[in-house]
């Protein structure tokens, strides 16, 4: 078997580098995580719970002039609280963002991945990396509009948040959502979370945060980790792309041409064959014969 499937019983909606469609015989709810930044205190409970549950190794850190633990996500750091101080019109805000995989409905990573079954998306919306199939090309990293997956030079595989798929499958919420002390992370069906988010945005606007918004970018078909952003006018400061897209630009073009490229080569061979049939070989008359 070339493709070792993720060892879990969830129905797969699509897989990377897959030429055949998913069987589509089971139906279940789509889940989503809603991160309400207006309730987040940056305690890193989620960051630690993620590492504890997933048994991710320590990536040694050094304080670099911030409350932030690591400078960046890593193969063993799937979730990172990012801290930014912003001052707009004398109004200080300490922007704290839970940075982790957003589990796009249209996952750029999956679209970019050349290895069959290395990236799968389950029917519940979770995008999972199956390292057994990963070839370590890191093209998913470039395909991701949020710059999330991280390559391990040790295992030569790429890693990211899998939304605690083992817990979700067992009927539990992801570890980060379970642990969040201030209920800044909510977990439920996508439908419920969107509804909850709308309520929250309304509440924030009533509290004077006119730019409060739900971050569920349509360019990637929506995400399964959404944010309620209190300062929607400062998306850039949060490092949230205003209009992310999956598989756009060069990747989209590649997606189109790669359907033709191999055929072009086939046609080349065919043309050579036809040429041979039409004109035959051209051999020199041998001397002295």
């Amino acid at each position, binding site marked *: *078997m*070339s*493709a070792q*499937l*993720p*060892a*879990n*019983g969830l*129905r*797969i909606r699509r*897989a990377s*580098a*897959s*030429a*055949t*469609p*998913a*069987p589509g015989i089971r139906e279940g709810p789509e889940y989503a995580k809603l991160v309400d930044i207006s309730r987040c205190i940056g*305690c*890193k*409970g989620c*960051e*630690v*719970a993620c590492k*504890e*549950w997933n048994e991710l190794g320590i990536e040694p850190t050094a304080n670099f002039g911030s409350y932030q633990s690591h400078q960046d996500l890593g193969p063993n750091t799937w979730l990172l609280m990012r801290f930014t101080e912003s001052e707009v019109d004398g109004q200080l805000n300490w922007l704290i963002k839970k940075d982790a995989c957003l589990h796009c409905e249209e996952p750029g990573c999956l679209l970019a991945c050349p290895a*069959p*079954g290395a990236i799968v998306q389950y029917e519940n919306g979770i995008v999972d990396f199956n390292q057994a199939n990963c070839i370590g090309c890191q093209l998913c990293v470039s395909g991701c509009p949020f710059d999330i997956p991280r390559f391990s030079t040790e295992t030569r595989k790429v890693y990211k948040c899998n939304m605690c*798929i*083992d*817990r979700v*499958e*067992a009927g*539990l919420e992801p*570890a980060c959502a*379970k*642990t*969040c*002390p*201030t*209920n800044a992370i909510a977990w439920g069906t996508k439908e419920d979370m969107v509804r909850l988010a709308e309520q929250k945005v309304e509440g924030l606007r009533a509290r004077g945060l006119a730019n409060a918004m739900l971050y569920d970018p349509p360019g990637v078909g929506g995400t399964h980790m959404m944010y309620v952003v209190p300062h929607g006018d400062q998306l850039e400061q949060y490092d949230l792309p205003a209009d992310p897209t999956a598989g756009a630009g060069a990747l989209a073009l590649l997606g189109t041409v790669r359907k033709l490229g191999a055929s072009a080569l086939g046609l080349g061979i065919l043309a050579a064959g036809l040429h041979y049939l039409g004109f035959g070989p051209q051999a020199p008359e041998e001397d002295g014969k």
Partner: protein
Amino acid sequence: MTLSRRDLLKGTALAAGGTFVSALGFDLKPAYAQSRELKISGAREYKTVCPYCAVGCGTIAYVHGSGGLNTTRSVIHVEGDPDSPINGGTLCPKGASQMQLAMSPRLEHTPKYRAAGSTEWEDVDWEWAMSWFARKYKDSRDATFVERDAQGRRVNRCEGIGWVGSATVTNEDAYLITKTQRALGIVFMDHQARI
């Protein structure tokens, strides 16, 4: 019977074809491969309380091992107790990493003694340690005990020994500390309420 070369080739081709077909595209058939086990599914649950701050979050310790005679139990995971009206299952980073505190390889397992002027510890056994402790305690108590103060009032206090801690022990042990130390006449006592 003997296989002709031709038969052999055919067989190989068939086999190769099979490989070829399955390798051609990604086959979704085994989408119901065996489940990834939830790591705590077989663990025993113990309801405990987070040891850090005084919010008093309810926690569940997931323990590996049946507790049978031949086993040593170990904590494999700790998470919040969803029933607790205090934390509702949530935990802060400290609480969420309790498992590492519980099972820390940095925990000590041997009493140690450091002699006057020494630059290092030496391991000692409990018998030696406790008799040393009691000896020092009694000697200092005897040396500094004040039965009557300068005005002749009965005060029965030990002035030469201080006891500190702890806000990290249980109520029951805290009570036992007060009970034994007050009975021994200790007056210098404090814990982390002030610090």
